[in-house]
């Protein structure tokens, strides 16, 4: 069978499962008593194991298997989660993630996981810490009564007596190859062999079912045998088309664990199950003695699985490259549409105008759909943060709660892809510099646990992402000093800065307030990188801070990076586009209404006085100057609370424009955020309104 056809599906689903494992483990960490979460985790791990084994990623399967073993004990209340177990499970998850990454990168997904496996096994055996073993054994009594035994009382007593009489009792999971045509026949051959070498006490599913091929790929048998473990395994595996036989020799404890009912006083209270006695370093086994339990788990999961597939069939996964191609084609169409509209208005034929109008409406709807297709909830970025914050807080020895709100807020895929790194940087900054160490917090009369809020929300044509901590805030004195020392500002300038401007200094290039370079931040990369990145996305970042109370970073991002509504304006022979989202209104101003205040041009606008900016001056326009005009067109733009009137030559029209980058050669051009192609094929530059407001 060609596995490559399934590889992308495998990768997608593995990522989903890993994500869910991560999330739910974190949830469990905050609510360790909630066993329903353990069930979800267990099911994810189990599915992942099955998928990996099917695809032949043995290391992945075996590590998941070990994790599953531990989770199974927890699920059956035979083991209580503690920090050590959480840490080990998280380590396991990290290893799984890097293996899946390797597979994505075209690798084999192999990795040396023996250290983590050993840790997991020690947890499983209860060796890692004695007190947990005793706790587990105390819990085992009611745990066992809850679990359905595979063996009935008669069968288990037969097996138990055999063990006590010194016979070898084996639990065997036989897995038949997936491409096997006659499963029942192969199963028959296995039974034939088992019966020749001993006695079959119980099989799961029943012999009748197996004969009628009513089983998936594996079945479990309990046998009393005259041959040893190795011979039994080899004997079964010598039957053709058998993928594996996992043979476990049972003792009274593991028998009880594996499905025996508590038989009164003889019921031993142990935390070990058969698998712990499993011979092989589990790395070799793709499926294992656990399959018996796994089957019950699969059975219980099946109904919900069917429900899930019904919901799944309503969505499809689309390769993002196809969406990008669709987007590019659509933007070509949009340019032609604008051209057609122009032609229609010149030619003035009713039929043409009507057709073009209809086409415009259809393409408008199409545009909405295409854009919506590209929208992804920020969740896909946010969901890696709880884990990151947990690990960081541990390494910093701080207690930090991360509160995420608005994870369902949607953003264009291209923005999502780019926004992760800046957010990581800001979060690290909050954790490292913002939230104080525990003693400092107590001294400051705060709670031990710091809170970091991560919020996303829509507002108009923008999405805002905020990171707010209740830490120590920005030390303005220190910031000013460092800024002067690093030559960012002069001492003279420093005295004139407002509080907000001082806060913004931390975004200046080459700035770091960290006294010493820590592991987390201060690797020579400052917040200026964050600012540059966000600007390149067409957004901007601000910071508010109250010393001793905390800081809030606020990132404003455009909804989409591909198509925006803009006002096209003229400056002499040149045409520019101003994004509509920042335009408050357009109007005219007479020359005599322009006033000079402290050398700055100002005008009255709706009862307040706002500055006037000459676009032709800012852009060094060669063919236009408003100086000799009695009346000038103005565009009033907004950035937060601030308003500015921008003088232009002439308005052309409002239009949907396709954003194009200026390429890698022209980067960081002040006041220009990109380019677009107009209907006539000309390139028009897009003004960055934020750059016009100081």
């Amino acid at each position, binding site marked *: 069978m060609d596995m490559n056809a399934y590889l992308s599906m495998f990768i997608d689903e593995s990522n989903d499962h890993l994500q869910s494992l991560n999330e739910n483990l974190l949830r469990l960490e905050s609510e360790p008593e909630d066993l329903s979460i353990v069930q979800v985790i267990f099911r994810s791990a189990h599915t992942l194991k099955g998928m990996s084994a099917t695809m032949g990623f043995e290391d992945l399967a075996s590590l998941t298997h070990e994790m599953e073993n531990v989770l199974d004990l927890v699920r059956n209340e035979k083991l209580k989660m503690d920090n050590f177990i959480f840490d080990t499970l998280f380590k396991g998850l990290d290893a799984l993630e890097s293996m899946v990454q390797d597979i994505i990168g075209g690798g084999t997904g192999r990795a040396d996981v023996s250290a983590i496996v050993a840790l997991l096994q020690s947890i499983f055996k209860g060796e890692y810490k004695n007190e947990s073993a005793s706790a587990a054994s105390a819990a085992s009594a009611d745990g066992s009564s809850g679990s359905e035994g595979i063996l009935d009382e008669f069968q288990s007593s037969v097996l138990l007596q055999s063990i006590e009489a010194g016979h070898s009792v084996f639990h065997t999971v036989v897995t038949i190859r997936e491409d096997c045509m006659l499963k029942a026949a192969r199963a028959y051959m296995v039974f034939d062999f088992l019966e020749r070498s001993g006695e079959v006490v119980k099989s799961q599913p029943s012999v009748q079912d197996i004969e009628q091929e009513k089983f998936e790929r594996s079945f479990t048998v309990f046998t009393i045998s005259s041959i040893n473990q190795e011979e039994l395994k080899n004997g079964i595996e010598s039957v053709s088309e058998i993928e594996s036989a996992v043979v476990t020799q049972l003792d009274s404890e593991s028998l009880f664990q594996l499905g025996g009912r508590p038989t009164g006083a003889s019921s031993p209270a142990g935390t070990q199950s058969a698998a712990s006695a499993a011979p092989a370093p589990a790395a070799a086994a793709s499926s294992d003695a656990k399959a018996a339990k796994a089957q019950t788990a699969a059975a219980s999961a099946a109904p919900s699985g069917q429900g899930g597939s019904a919901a799944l069939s309503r969505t499809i996964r689309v390769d993002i490259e196809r969406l990008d191609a669709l987007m590019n084609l659509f933007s070509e169409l949009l340019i032609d549409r604008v051209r057609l509209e122009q032609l229609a208005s010149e030619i003035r034929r009713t039929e043409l105008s009507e057709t073009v109008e209809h086409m415009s409406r259809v393409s408008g709807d199409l545009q909405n759909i295409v854009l919506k297709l590209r929208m992804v909830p920020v969740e896909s970025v946010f969901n890696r943060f709880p884990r990151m914050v947990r690990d960081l807080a541990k390494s910093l020895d701080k207690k930090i709660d991360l509160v995420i709100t608005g994870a369902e807020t949607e953003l264009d895929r291209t923005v999502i892809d780019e926004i992760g790194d800046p957010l990581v940087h800001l979060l690290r900054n909050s954790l490292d510099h913002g939230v104080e160490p525990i003693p400092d917090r107590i001294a400051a009369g705060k709670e031990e646990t710091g809170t970091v809020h991560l919020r996303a929300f829509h507002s108009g044509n923008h999405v805002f992402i905020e990171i707010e901590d209740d830490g120590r805030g920005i030390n303005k004195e220190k910031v000013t000093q460092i800024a002067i020392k690093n030559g960012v500002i002069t001492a003279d300038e420093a005295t004139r800065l407002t509080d907000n401007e001082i806060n913004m200094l931390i975004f200046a290039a080459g700035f770091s307030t960290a006294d010493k370079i820590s592991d987390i931040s201060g690797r020579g990369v400052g917040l200026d990188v964050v600012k540059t990145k966000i600007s390149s996305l067409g957004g901007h970042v601000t910071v508010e801070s109250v010393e001793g109370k905390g800081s809030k970073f606020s990132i404003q991002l455009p909804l989409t990076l591909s198509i925006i509504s803009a006002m096209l304006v003229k400056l002499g022979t040149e045409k520019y586009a101003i994004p509509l989202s920042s335009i408050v209104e357009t109007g005219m101003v007479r020359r005599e209404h322009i006033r000079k205040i402290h050398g700055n041009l100002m005008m009255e606008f709706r009862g307040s006085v706002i500055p006037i900016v000459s676009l032709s001056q800012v852009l060094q326009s060669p063919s236009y100057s408003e100086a000799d005009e009695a009346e000038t067109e103005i565009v009033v733009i907004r950035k937060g609370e601030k308003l500015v009137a921008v003088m232009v030559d002439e308005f052309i029209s409002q239009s949907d424009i396709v954003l194009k980058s200026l*390429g*890698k*050669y022209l980067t960081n*051009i002040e*006041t220009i955020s990109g380019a677009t192609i107009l209907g006539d094929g000309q*390139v028009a530059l897009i003004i960055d309104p934020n750059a016009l407001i100081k």
Partner: protein
Amino acid sequence: MGEEMKVIVFGLADEEYGIEVDKVRTIERMLPITRVPKTPAFIKGVINLRGVVLPVIDLRGRFGLSESEPTENSRIIIVAANDLEVGFIVDAANDVIDIDSDNIDSPPEVVGGIKAKYLRGVAKIGDNRLLIMLNLSEVLNKNEIIQLEQLEG
């Protein structure tokens, strides 16, 4: 014998220059150029090349030669190197020739100073023809541009 390579030959201020053919995307006639403010003078602006916005550099300006008005023969050579795609305005582009890499000498001492960096060497073709081979990655080096600006400014 060294390696044979195909070279696009173009003229610039009475001299002939060469760029390896695999670095050249297309050669276009002059197109409308949109000025981009706040860029060095030799960056003429951006063009729309079949839906892609590309910056255009006046190679005369880049080499510190006197700039001239475009003529009938002026061409925009679209080159791609170091992940960058840029158009060069040249006086004329009319030849593709094969040269032997053995025939490329390092630039003569006379061509000293900052310009030497842009040159990969000088190729002799035929009896009396010299071709100046461009070092594209240096010509497109943006850090260098800043330096040059400071020198000029």
